[in-house]
């Protein structure tokens, strides 16, 4: 039997040359079966969601696991019963704008914390860590009151402001990442007469590509997945898909339509899953390199 793993052992995973338990040892089997069981259990809700989304209304309470016909029309209904594409476009605009601003802003601030010395810096860094602990939910209502007074309720400006300020977790990741480079990296550039902004843009920003992806995906998911802020700050005409999908699929008197909720949830989830799978490698590396350990 040829196993690709034994043919090309990963050099990084090489441990001491002590005799290792064989690939088929009972311990490995138990580990494998446990992981299999947990994976199946955690993946099962996706399967039942897909089945629900394809179940015709007449078979909603049937005992059979698979409906006799798959009703793809549920998806067409799900995008028709609410202004799905309008909500999706709103979500996309908000998420991309906020994530791009958050990523860039956090990189700038993270660079400052990592590479520049100034009086009061450790105090500010302490404040950064402290704000990581301040629950968003505590500040959201008072922030909403502030936005209301500034006339920004019903607009997308709050997301622009939030993005421009950077996000503490992303700033922290950048700070850890940028700290890991030797001082000589910018000293040569300083001697060449390069300014701080040029050093940041030409040297550090390109180095942080995996983190850029991580920060962008994290920020995108936060906004795409957020229910409370758009529910508070936006209205039916310009709200996001998260709000539309979770409140739209009801008949009069609040009678829910489970198959349409399922269909809407599937469509709502697709960008999140695709983005994660596409960015997974950088995402994991971004975390691993960040020193958040």
């Amino acid at each position: 039997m040829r196993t690709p793993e034994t043919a090309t052992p990963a050099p990084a995973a090489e441990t001491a040359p002590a005799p290792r338990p064989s690939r088929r040892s009972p311990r490995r089997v138990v580990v494998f079966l446990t992981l299999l069981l947990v994976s199946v259990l955690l993946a099962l809700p996706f399967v039942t969601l897909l089945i629900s989304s394809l179940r015709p209304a007449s078979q909603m309470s049937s005992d059979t696991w698979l409906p006799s016909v798959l009703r793809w029309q549920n998806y067409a209904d799900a995008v028709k019963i609410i202004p799905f594409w309008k909500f999706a476009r709103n979500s996309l605009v908000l998420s991309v704008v906020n994530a791009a601003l958050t990523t860039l802003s956090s990189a700038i601030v993270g660079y400052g914390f990592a590479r520049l010395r100034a009086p009061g810096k450790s105090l500010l860094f302490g404040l950064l860590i402290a704000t990581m602990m301040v629950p968003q939910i505590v500040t959201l209502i008072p922030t909403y009151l502030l936005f209301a007074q500034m006339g920004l309720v019903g607009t997308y400006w709050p997301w622009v402001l939030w993005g421009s300020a950077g996000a503490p977790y992303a700033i922290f990741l950048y700070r850890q990442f940028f700290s890991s480079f030797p001082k000589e990296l910018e000293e040569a550039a300083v001697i060449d007469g390069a300014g701080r902004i040029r050093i940041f843009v030409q040297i550090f920003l390109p180095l942080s590509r995996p983190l850029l992806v991580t920060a962008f995906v994290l920020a995108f998911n936060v906004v795409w997945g957020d229910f409370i802020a758009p529910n508070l700050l936006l209205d039916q005409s310009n709200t996001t898909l998260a709000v539309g999908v979770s409140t739209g699929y009801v008949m009069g008197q609040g009678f829910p339509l489970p198959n349409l909720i399922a269909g809407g949830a599937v469509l709502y989830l697709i960008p999140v899953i695709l983005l994660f799978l596409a960015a997974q490698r950088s995402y994991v590396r971004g975390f691993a390199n960040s020193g958040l350990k």
Partner: protein
Amino acid sequence: MRPHRPRGAEPAGRRRLGRSRSEALAFYGFVSPWVIGTALLTLFPVGYAVYLSFTAWDGISPVKPWVGLDNYHEVLTSGDTMASLTKTLLLVAIIVPTTIIGSLLLAVLLNEKVRGRTVFRTLIYIPAIVPPVAASLIWKVAFDQNSGAVNRFLRMFGVTAVSWLTGSRAFVVLIVVLLWSIGAGIIIFLAALQTVPAEQLEAVKLDGGGPLTAFRHVTLPVISPVLLFQTVLVTITTLQTFVPVLLLSPLSDHGMQDVYTNIPNANRVYMVDVYQQFFAYSRYGYGSAMLTVFFLVIVALTAVIFKVAGRTVFYAVDPNAPAKEG
């Protein structure tokens, strides 16, 4: 010029001073987006909420009547508020240990060289990236009384029409929703497990210790800072639980207006109470006092976690030291 060279320390020193001033200016330039943003969007709102907590403002009228500590007195004596706080702490007591131990265990298993571990890792992690909105809807559909997969499964054993989303069972559903994202910590735990020195694990083995001994005396101390960080993170996240509670309960076509009354008592966590005070009863002063008390509870809980962990957390290296290429 040449004889002065050894005494070049003074001009160089002045130059360094000049550079450090420009460096400080550059620092404040670079961090200004965050400093301004935090002042405006975090510190000011928190301060404003603290101010409002001493008033009986209704959210509309131009006057904000000062009531001193009345709101705080009510928060601490109100049966409803204390009940929702207790409920939230119960949720923390269930979710935090389960999530931390569960995800650490999964990370340890995923760190073994078993076949398909990349696939397992992805499958276990994916529920953690599902936004709370979608997670709530997925389980709401699965636990639906008539059409849900859970009741379809139970019907195979003759159990019929369990109403999961109402009454005290709703709390079980809430726990399921929150535990579904148990894999959230595995990426960080896996990264931490990779830093455990293999030669020390070998040494324990040579001394005749089993894998449990190695885990307790080598692995656990090395990863303890990460364990602490994750515990604080999960605690804070769990305390804020709100969206799943909201979306698991039946929504009417009136939107969010009367949603709070539909939430079963079993799921009335603190944030439900807060939102209801603000947006259903227009009690902005009282709601602000609730937020302030909540913030203090979070600070206190975090402090307790650090205090308890302080004796056991082991910093082998300076936690602020740059990370090695992993």
